[in-house]
């Protein structure tokens, strides 16, 4: 035993969570109960280890405690059922659990992947998949997750228990899916991790509250996903996208928490190490023949990150990449970004006529992003009265407070120039 800093204990516990839960679930089958037991073991360790030191086999220690809790739970469940239904039996699991020791602990390298598949199961709502992933794979407590999403702990606890209920009802086996199902489930996992990253990335603007950093957690989880699924270039692409975006985080907001757009950021504040790692990852991923949307987005981020000044940005390359992305994704926001890149390469008029085409779709005509892109292009073209109008309409349509403030400040800048 050696004494340990609470902070490093916390990190260690989070890293060990999927190993312990994976081994326990393989053994016990009841994912929901195993998950509760694992959380209880984590809690016990977080109180004991900083005082008494980290045990020699920390994962084995956690496994043993979790197993004991699980066995308590099973025993009381069985007793309850015997009382209610007057049936005998149920001893098999109990016996098995009682005889186990921490030496039975068998980590499996597929466990993280398996657990992610479980937590991002299609039968869950996005919000519950996110919460369950952070708890069961990320090792975060319900209170931490609640705080991260500004939701009370009781509500978050219900969200997690509903998620576990949905998994139970779906009768999903604790085994790796194969073929097309594997691809689809992997897509769902990547989507959930991307959402977690995005939540951290966007809500970190301005106020840094005392809460877990969701972008850091998302990167950590995606790193372990990348280790468990090294054959998937899209996973590497997702990790690269996160790193290349995270690299700019220090430069993307000002002292008052105001958003600073890419072309006005102090590029010396970008994190070179993250950029280097991200660029290497994406270069390797894209050398495979399977190109997907995360790789393309990462490649676009890499082009931005490698430009020493905004003027040096290779917009032709970005336009090409958005063009490729457009072919494999029907996301209208990609089309709008493609229009911006086109404007940078071929001129504002070319960009605006693409926006006009996109706005043929009635749902997009009044979308705030359409207005924001128009405003940006009109400003570049020197049509300030039109730019002002569209900045205002974009500001009224966005759901993001920092973005609203940014768009309003652009409008204010233009109107003060006019008067």
């Amino acid at each position, binding site marked *: 035993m050696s004494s340990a800093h609470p902070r490093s204990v916390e990190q260690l516990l989070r890293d060990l969570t999927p190993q312990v839960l994976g081994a326990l679930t393989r053994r016990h089958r009841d994912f929901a109960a195993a998950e509760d037991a694992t959380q209880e073991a984590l809690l016990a360790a977080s109180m004991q280890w900083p005082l008494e030191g980290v045990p020699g086999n920390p994962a084995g220690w956690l496994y043993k405690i979790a197993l004991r809790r699980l066995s308590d739970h099973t025993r009381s469940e069985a007793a309850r059922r015997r009382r209610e239904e007057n049936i005998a039996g149920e001893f098999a699991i109990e016996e098995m659990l009682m005889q186990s020791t921490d030496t039975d602990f068998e980590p499996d390298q597929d466990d993280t992947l398996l657990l992610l598949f479980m937590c991002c199961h299609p039968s869950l709502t996005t*919000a519950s998949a996110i919460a369950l992933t952070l708890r069961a794979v990320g090792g975060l407590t319900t209170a931490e997750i609640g705080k991260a*999403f500004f939701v009370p702990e009781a*509500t*978050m606890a219900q969200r997690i228990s*509903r998620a576990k209920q949905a998994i139970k009802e779906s009768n999903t086996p604790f085994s790796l899916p194969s073929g097309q199902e594997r691809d689809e489930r992997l897509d769902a996992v990547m989507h959930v991790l991307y959402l977690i990253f995005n*939540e951290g990335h966007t809500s970190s603007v301005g106020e840094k509250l005392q809460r877990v950093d969701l972008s850091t957690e998302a990167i950590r989880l995606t790193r372990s996903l990348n280790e468990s699924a090294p054959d998937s270039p899209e996973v590497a692409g997702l990790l690269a996208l996160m790193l290349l975006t995270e690299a700019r985080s220090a430069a993307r907001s000002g002292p008052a928490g105001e958003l600073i757009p890419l072309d006005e950021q102090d590029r010396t504040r970008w994190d070179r190490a993250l950029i280097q790692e991200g660029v290497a990852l994406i270069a390797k991923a894209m050398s495979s023949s399977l190109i997907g949307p995360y790789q393309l987005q990462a490649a676009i981020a890499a082009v931005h990150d490698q430009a020493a000044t905004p003027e040096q940005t290779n917009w032709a390359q970005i336009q090409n990449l958005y063009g490729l992305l457009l072919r494999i994704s029907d996301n209208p926001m990609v089309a709008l970004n493609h229009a911006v890149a086109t404007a940078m390469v071929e001129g504002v008029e070319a960009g605006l006529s693409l926006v006009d085409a996109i706005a043929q779709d009635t749902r997009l005509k009044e979308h*705030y992003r359409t207005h924001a892109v128009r405003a940006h292009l009109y400003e570049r073209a020197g049509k300030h009265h039109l730019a002002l109008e569209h900045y205002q309409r974009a500001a009224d349509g966005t*759901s*993001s407070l920092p*973005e609203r403030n940014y768009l309003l400040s652009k409008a204010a800048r233009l109107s003060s120039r006019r008067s």
Partner: protein
Amino acid sequence: MKFMLMMNVPHDTGDYRINQWTPEAFNAHIKFMKDLNRDLTKSGELVDAQGLAPPGRAKIIRFGKGGAPVASDGPFAETKEFLAGYWIVDVEKPERAYEIAAKASSAPGPDGQPLVIPIEVREVLGAPLPSEG
């Protein structure tokens, strides 16, 4: 995405003259609200729900010279409605917030029939949705 559901009650009837209801009707109303909040916690959607003290106890505060708060007392005749309480819910899509608002609006009145309280639904500004980025 988060929404604030504001229960605005008409100024002239105040709190629907709830003090004149029968105890049964009153209790049914209170129970309805409690059940609603419990259900929203269970569904993993409740962020906050609060009732506010009556407008007779409200003050309107303005900044005064030297930084001292300047208060004007109610009742504020110019307002037609006042906020009696609110919910903040975290839901998957706006339609779900409307559904919750309609449920809240159906809280029973003195005759056991829905009061059809107007509920104003406003999105709470937060982080942009990734599908928009």
